[in-house]
């Protein structure tokens, strides 16, 4: 009869996307949201 899919550690009612805190297919809990950012090379001082 399948699995209660609400017990897989994903907040299926979340208004946000789930992938941004998806740690791994084996994780029972969401991962910390890693900020995605890009630092241009010119921001680095020698």
């Amino acid at each position, binding site marked *: 009869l399948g699995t209660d899919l609400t017990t897989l550690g994903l907040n299926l009612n979340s208004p946000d996307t789930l992938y941004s805190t998806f*740690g*791994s297919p*084996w*994780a029972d809990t969401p*991962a910390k949201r*890693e*900020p995605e*950012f*890009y*630092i*241009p090379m*010119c*921001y*680095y*001082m020698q």
Partner: protein
Amino acid sequence: DFATSHGKFSAHEQDSIMSMLEGSLKSLPEPNDSERHRPKPKPYLTPSYYPQVAAGIFENPQLFEKFDTDTLFFIFYFQQGTYQQYLAAKELKKQSWRYHKKYLTWFQRHEEPKEISNDSEQGTYVYFDYETGWCQRKKTEFTFEYRFLE
């Protein structure tokens, strides 16, 4: 390809696959196997009553709206490569500062430029001198070439 065209495995193949799968459980990737390696200075050992991990609020863009420009420049020049530098740069841009890639310096219009062309603008600016005075200075008759605009 272990599976023939229909995805069917022979009994032998199935056993071999299962033993590979069972063996690979030992090396199931853990979170630390994908933790980004960011060359960070070793954390300075502080007494336990100091916070041992950075507070989450330092990843919140709203906090950067409350910092004064001096703080934003400090974060930008002294925390390079971090998410905080990224947030500080975003906040400076929101406050109409513009980064000059050649001088590695932030400029802000002091008044409307006298001239604007496709390639540059010219006029009086304020810039943040991070090298000698760690203060804001005025520069007249400056030409900001857009090819140096980050």
